[in-house]
């Protein structure tokens, strides 16, 4: 649903919006042994990384930049801990979106059973865990580069999703993501730059983190 896709607009990063990236000239062959091996190389079930989010608003001509830490748990979902310029926590699971803002306000939105939300959330989870073959259920997948330096392109196949998200690109080296960008059909975008990506395994912290 459109409105749910809007939620993900926050992922949209600054991107050259005047033309699709070159990766979209290279449809991925999902049955290609090389591509399968590439996907299989992503073994990290849970990840943590520092991120910088750059949101570019075309009409207003401004950029909003924030940074913090992201935890991508295989079991629970994603936790986005924004530290600057204003603190907030965003928890994304299969069934709900929870947000804790600077003044302590906590909001939770139950989205269980919401096809669009879960489709996108699953896709993002799949992207961050390197499961591009599962992502292909909701997106057309494109791939270019080599194991050392690669770029994945995703175009949503669902009309409702594509009405808002034009495409997603993911750039990386080896099994490390450098950048995830989401471009909206209206030209606004969000780009995430990742640093210090590493495997994350802290089940004790996980419970506390995801139960705001």
């Amino acid at each position, binding site marked *: 649903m459109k409105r749910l896709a*809007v939620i993900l607009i*926050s992922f949209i990063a600054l991107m050259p919006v005047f033309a699709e990236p070159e990766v979209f000239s290279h449809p991925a062959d999902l049955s290609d042994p090389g591509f399968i091996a590439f996907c299989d190389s992503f073994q990290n079930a849970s990840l943590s990384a520092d991120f910088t989010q750059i949101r570019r608003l075309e009409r207003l001509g401004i950029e909003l930049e924030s940074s913090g830490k992201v935890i991508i748990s295989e079991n629970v979902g994603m936790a986005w801990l924004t530290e600057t310029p204003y603190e907030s926590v965003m928890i994304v699971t299969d069934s709900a979106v929870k947000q804790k*803002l*600077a003044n302590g306000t906590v909001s939770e939105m*139950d*989205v269980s059973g*919401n*096809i*669009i939300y879960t489709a996108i959330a699953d896709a993002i989870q799949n992207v961050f865990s390197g499961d591009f073959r599962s992502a292909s259920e909701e997106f057309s997948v494109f791939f270019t580069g080599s194991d050392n330096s690669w770029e994945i392109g995703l175009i949503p196949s669902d009309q409702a999703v594509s009405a808002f998200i034009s495409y997603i690109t993911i750039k990386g080296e080896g099994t490390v993501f450098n950048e995830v960008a989401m471009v909206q059909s209206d030209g606004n975008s969000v780009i995430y730059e990742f640093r210090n990506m590493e495997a994350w395994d802290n089940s004790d912290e996980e419970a506390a983190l995801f139960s705001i």
Partner: protein
Amino acid sequence: MRKQRFSPSSIFFCVFYIAAVLIAAAMVSTKGIDISTDLMTLLPTNGIPEGHSKAEMQIAERQNDSVNIFVSHEDFNKAKEGAELLSSQLESEGILIPSEGISFDVSQFAPVLGRYRYQLLDEDTVSRIAENPGSFQAESLSRIFSTFSLSSMDTLDEDPFQLDSIMLSRLIAMASSLSPFMPKDGVLSAEEDGIWYVLLQRRIAPEHLDISNAGGSGISIIYEKGDALEESIPGLSIYYSGLPFHSYESASSAQREITIITTASLLLIMLMFIILFRNIHVVGLFLISTFFSFLSAGAVILIFFREIHILTLIFGTTLIGTSIDYAIHYYLAYAKRGEGEGAGDVSLKLGRNLLTSFLSTVLCYLLILFSPYSILRQVALFSSAGLFGAYITVRGFFPVIIRPWMVKSNALAFRLPGMRPHRSYIPLLLIASALIFITALPKAVIHNDITRFYTMSPRLLESEMTAGKIMGYTSVSYTIIEGEDERDAREKDASYSKALDQLAEEDAITGHLSLSSFLPAPSMQERSHDASMALVPLVESQCSAIGIDSGKAMDAISAPLDIADLEDLPEPIEAMLSQLVPGEIDGKFYIASMLFGVSDGAAVREMTMDHDGAFYFQKSTDISMQLDMLTSSILRIFAIASAAIFILLAVMYGRRGLALFSSPLIIIMSTIGIVVWTGMDLDFFFAVGLLLVIGLGLDYMVFASSSGEKPIMAITLSYATTALSFGTLLFSSFGPVHIFGVVVFIGITAAYIAALGAGYRRE
């Protein structure tokens, strides 16, 4: 021999039928005629305020053509393919009205938010702003810079506090709680236990709602196309939900039953007559009586009603048995007429008994006119008019057409042993029936359950259960709120909606759809606007933190209050919500709330009582409770009926009327006793049936107690024909009709036994 071929009765007969047929034809030509299959019209509306009742009827009418069709498959694409094929096939045949859009979409609210965002804030947000504007500013800045946003940031220059995000978040949560179906690849779909369901929410074209449609009813074609698709796409299952499916099934079932009951009754009765009288002309006479009886009933109903309910026609089949009684009595009296007596003499001789018989039965039918059920009133008028038609046919037409050669004196009916007077065993019957009655009393339970009115077919039951499982609720009910004007109604609706939210948190309901959830009441909009004013001093610093100019934001937040109304909402949303607004009725304004999955009706009822102008429609419980009270009140009608019959008998028969009065007593006591002993509850339709039994059963006693030749054969045949007519109702799938058949069958059997015991024995 009296030659009275054209007696006053005959002239009256002619005048009545000519007038009735002409008036009925004129009425039909001017206002048309409909056959109603809506079971809801069976239900009484007493206890419901008139305005609320009218408002509820408006809402219910809008559901009469709405259907939900769920097309399912493990593979989403197959489910989608099936749904799209079914939709296109049914649209091309004009069955389904083409859909303009696939669903309500919260993002359609964007233009409304642009214009009204500062006055559409919810209670919680207004409180947060009012309590601490600075804290709210911090909250909004962290929301803007967080990784997720609930709305486009494109409006930051007009909405620097991201109020749109808060409102959209609330609307998304609300939409998710109302339906699990979301747009996916251009269709509404949901996934449950690994199965994909694609939902077609559509309306049936008005001309295809009629089951008598020459090209087949819309529903039958939907079933036909659906079945074909299930066969052509392996693994595809289609489920159907909505009032039109139930109306179709009940009407189809009713049509079948009318055909079967009418055919069976007529065949059995005619067969009996042919065996007993060995004379096809007798059958002709009785068919003439039946024909004129139905002609009278139909004409009178057409004059007084624009719409005939299908159940009236089912109940009306009993006319076959009851109307024929007069013909039987007349024919047998004619067969045994004395030397020199003519057809007119026989009519005159029978006059008093026929009139008593007719009046006692019609009296009971007329008492049913005071019933709260419009359907029963229609049945009562139909049957009364039918009996009247039969009565004047026998009195006015039979003497004209009957001929001596129509009687075969050697027929079986005239060779059967007669009865002669004996010591009456009425006292014994009275004691026996009193014993049965008294011993049954402790077990007697007055209980009504309207769910027994109609039994779903296994297919529709499975469909509705599946639909309930997917949607998360199986019931939808309404509360209708009355206000002095629109503003008052909206304020009350908002207050009620808040109470419903509380009930949802307590799991008394699964959710609700209320106007105020989407369009805050005027007073709330005023409060929202006032709270927004507290943000004005912070606009400059907020815009500075974001890096935008504050001019537009300042203009937007400082705009004067302009209360948003229903028509200000986007068209698709206004269309959806307008279904909840019956609007002005008789000078008041009405708004409805739709309640989903009510699990604690008592809690809803209790809460509703605290809200002025609110009336909660919980039909099954309301009606059952009302029926319990009505069933009890039937006892009062019995008292009136008994007194009226007693007076009638006293007037017609003097002291002998007292003896005749034993019949109703035996009927009432034995019927109640037997029904209770067989484990049935005493419900409203039982009571109405019992009322009718008195009128029908008394006839036997009237003729049995008549002086002169004892018409035992006529009584027996009269009983047999009535028993056959009502006996066939035992096989009806409609609860009320079935119960009616059971009660009348038992009752008239008791009456017949009482008549036999009124002073006869076998010779």
